[in-house]
């Protein structure tokens, strides 16, 4: 199978998809270069750039420490101790993934305006992103071979020494990969920080764009942000590729014994409860609180009618479906190519699609705005352009699942079908598609959830008059109309959590993890 040359049609489709993905990158670089050296250096050598860099890097460093510590500690508790109710705690530990970060941000901001500073930003990213560390570390803990721990004890190590010299080193790849994802998410997040009025590169780019400055400033800031993202993604790529220790042993897997907590059981139960109150209790609690308030109770009275909420929900669903359809249409040829063919061209096309992972949503959206305003005027503020932006944003996400699904349909099974007298089309219909269908469905569902909870691109590209749940929450929260935003936030939270629950039930918790791979 792998030896067969890809057909011209397949190659053309793949090239088109990867060109589309690389287009925003090209436009951004072009705009930055067009500014010229003098303008660029004048714009970049300003205190503002240093301030943004410091703000962003400090927040990244802080988030790496908090999510690393909390994610690892929680993973240890739920995987390797006799913590009561571990099953429930481990579900609650990943649940924040189903709440979009800007909803979390909305909840905290509406709780106290005192959070509009570094501390508040760190709090929000910690509660929203720590599952990105928890999940891989918990998975790594499950993979640990108990024979290693026994051997270490036989060699005279006590428990503390064992943790530092044996367990932590084995967790290192998972932990590093997790905190790098957190860093990348901190870099690309826009909505959560904008609501907190915390200034990072993304909010500054948005501000520059709104202020109507020349295309040069947002483009130049975007280039710096892109460099930071690419650095993170590259580091993550190396950590993931190189440091997979893997088990040396094969054979039946024994479960590692649980360490007894003893007197710590009660305090740690309380700590888990308190943490869940912060991560899930506050976001959902604040939405419920504001739902119960009359629309004019908030600072700025904007009533949300049932019709408006239903309309916004419909827009979100409609855009989600359209986005998922286009994304899948682009991801399928690339997935087939990657799963079934080899060669430098295949690798280049696939890598280019993954490169989009490192392009923040705000950069993609701005590039598309600038492109259509200057060159493709009729497309500006059209629904089509918005759907294209979603496809560019979420193609890497879909591609991972599509590729995995297609790889599952092994060539040997297809060959068996052929040898039983089925033609190529019949094999596709009766063997390959049924095998890949659940995975493809999961990919489409992931893109759907991601689109419906997407804020940045929607905000910049939505046609005039199109209101989605996300843009409504944004608009109302920006004017401090928290009660007015609550119905939209409630609908979005329920949709996102229900979809995540269905996905996780069917494909495991790791599938929601995918929704928050950097996009």
């Amino acid at each position, binding site marked *: 199978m792998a030896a067969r040359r890809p057909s011209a049609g397949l190659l053309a489709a793949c090239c088109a998809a990867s060109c589309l993905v690389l287009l925003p990158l090209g436009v951004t670089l072009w705009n930055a270069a067009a500014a010229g050296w003098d303008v660029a250096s004048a714009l970049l050598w300003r205190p503002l750039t240093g301030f943004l860099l410091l703000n962003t890097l400090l927040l990244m460093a802080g988030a790496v420490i908090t999510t690393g510590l909390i994610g690892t500690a929680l993973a240890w508790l739920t995987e390797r101790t006799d913590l009561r109710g571990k099953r429930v705690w481990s579900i609650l530990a990943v649940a924040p993934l189903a709440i979009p970060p800007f909803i979390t941000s909305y909840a905290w901001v509406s709780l106290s305006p005192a959070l509009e500073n570094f501390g508040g930003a760190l709090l929000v990213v910690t509660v929203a992103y720590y599952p990105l560390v928890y999940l891989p570390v918990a998975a790594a803990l499950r993979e640990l*071979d108990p*024979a*290693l721990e*026994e*051997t*270490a*004890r*036989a*060699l*005279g*190590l*006590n428990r503390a020494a064992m943790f530092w*010299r*044996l367990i932590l*080193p*084995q967790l*290192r790849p998972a932990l590093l990969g997790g905190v790098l994802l957190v860093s990348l998410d901190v870099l690309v997040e826009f909505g959560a920080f904008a609501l907190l009025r915390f200034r990072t590169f993304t909010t500054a780019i948005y501000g520059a764009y709104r202020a109507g400055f020349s295309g040069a400033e947002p483009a130049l800031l975007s280039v710096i942000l892109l460099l930071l993202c690419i650095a993170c993604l590259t580091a993550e790529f190396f950590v993931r590729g190189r440091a997979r*220790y*893997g*088990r*040396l*042993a*094969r*054979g039946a897997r024994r479960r590692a014994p649980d360490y007894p907590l003893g007197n710590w059981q009660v305090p740690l139960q309380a700590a888990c409860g308190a943490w869940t109150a912060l991560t899930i209790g506050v976001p959902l609690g604040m939405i419920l609180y504001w739902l119960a308030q009359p629309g004019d109770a908030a600072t700025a009275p904007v009533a949300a009618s049932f019709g408006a909420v239903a309309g916004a929900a419909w827009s979100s669903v409609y855009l989600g479906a359209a986005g998922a359809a286009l994304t899948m249409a682009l991801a399928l040829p690339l997935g087939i190519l990657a799963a079934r063919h080899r060669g430098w061209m295949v690798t280049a096309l696939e890598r280019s699609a993954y490169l989009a992972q490192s392009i923040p949503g705000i950069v993609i959206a701005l590039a598309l705005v600038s492109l259509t305003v200057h060159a493709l005027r009729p497309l500006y503020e059209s629904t089509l352009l918005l759907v294209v932006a979603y496809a560019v944003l979420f193609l890497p996400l879909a591609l991972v699942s599509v590729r995995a699904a297609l790889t599952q349909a092994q060539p040997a099974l297809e060959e068996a079908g052929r040898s039983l007298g089925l033609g190529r089309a019949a094999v596709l219909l009766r063997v390959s598609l049924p095998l890949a269908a659940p995975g493809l469905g999961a990919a489409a569902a992931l893109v759907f959830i991601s689109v419906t909870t997407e804020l940045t691109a929607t905000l910049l590209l939505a046609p005039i008059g199109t209101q989605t749940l996300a843009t409504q929450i944004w608009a109302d929260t920006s004017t401090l109309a928290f009660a007015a935003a609550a119905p939209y936030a409630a609908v979005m939270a329920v949709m996102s959590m229900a979809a995540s629950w269905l996905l996780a039930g069917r494909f495991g918790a790791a599938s929601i993890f995918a929704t928050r791979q950097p996009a």
Partner: protein
Amino acid sequence: MSQGLEVTGLTKSFGATPVLRGVSFSAPQGGLTAILGASGSGKTTLLRLIAGFETPDAGQIRLAGARLADGAKIQPPERRAIGYVAQEGALFPHLNVADNITFGLPRAQRRARHRVAELLRLLDLPQNFADRAPQDLSGGQQQRVALARALAPNPKLVLLDEPFSALDAGLRAETRQAVAAALRAAGATAILVTHDQEEALSMASQAGVLQAGLLAQISPPERLYRQPASPALANFLGEAVFLPGTAAAGRVDCALGALAVADRQVHGDVEVLVRPEQIKVFTEFREDGVAARVRGVQFFGHDALVRFALRDGGAERDVTARLFSHKLPPPDGQVWLQVEGEVTVFGPRGKP
């Protein structure tokens, strides 16, 4: 006071399932004791109790006179100074070979790569392996490094949990030899559990058989094989031919003639155990041979198991002989059988 290991009345159940039901034995210092058992016989549990990974329900474990376990009162594994080689080596995947070997040593010795060169030499491994990752080693080499790591802190006892079972046949023999030689050279007391008879019999200075949580017999390998305590044990240890017979005064009469018996105490109606390699086959008539007909041949390469039918009074009996494969009798041919050496009988003991 014994410098070796003393195990007395060791009992362990997992839930309602008894795994060990009172196991006692001693392993002399400097020797290799093999514990043989089928899967589920409790052999791995025995090893894990000695290592300290499990707590016994009852019974004692002493090493060089020190009490390691007395019922549920146990010393934790890290204070026992017992080396442990797990089934598949369990090398630490994040450390290179040298760091694996020195893992159990104090920091200064770890820095100085204390004994790494010496142990690599002892296990017959090239010196440049020190910087390799365990992933780059073959299964047999990993097992040798695991033993080097266990030996590095100079343990009083080394436990080996089926260390060769994951290796393929050729590698297994070679690794086995290297490990046995290294243990001898280090003068280490060792306990090996295995389900492989050949392994236990070829490596050990004494071997025991664990059956259903009880130690059925423990003795030097030769004695274990030639004079097993029961027919079941005889079957477990290798190919066996059983015939009814009548014993008296050091001889037994059976279908294969009048044979010498190792145990002169047994008399009366007995079951006779003949090992297939004891049976000699002649294609020409012999006065002292027993006539038989070839029934079938199971060919193994260097040797073969040949099945014969012979008349025993009115009945026809099957016996099996192990022959070198270059001199096999023709199928269906007439042969004469003769038994070499003493046989073992199972039956009532005491004065006739």
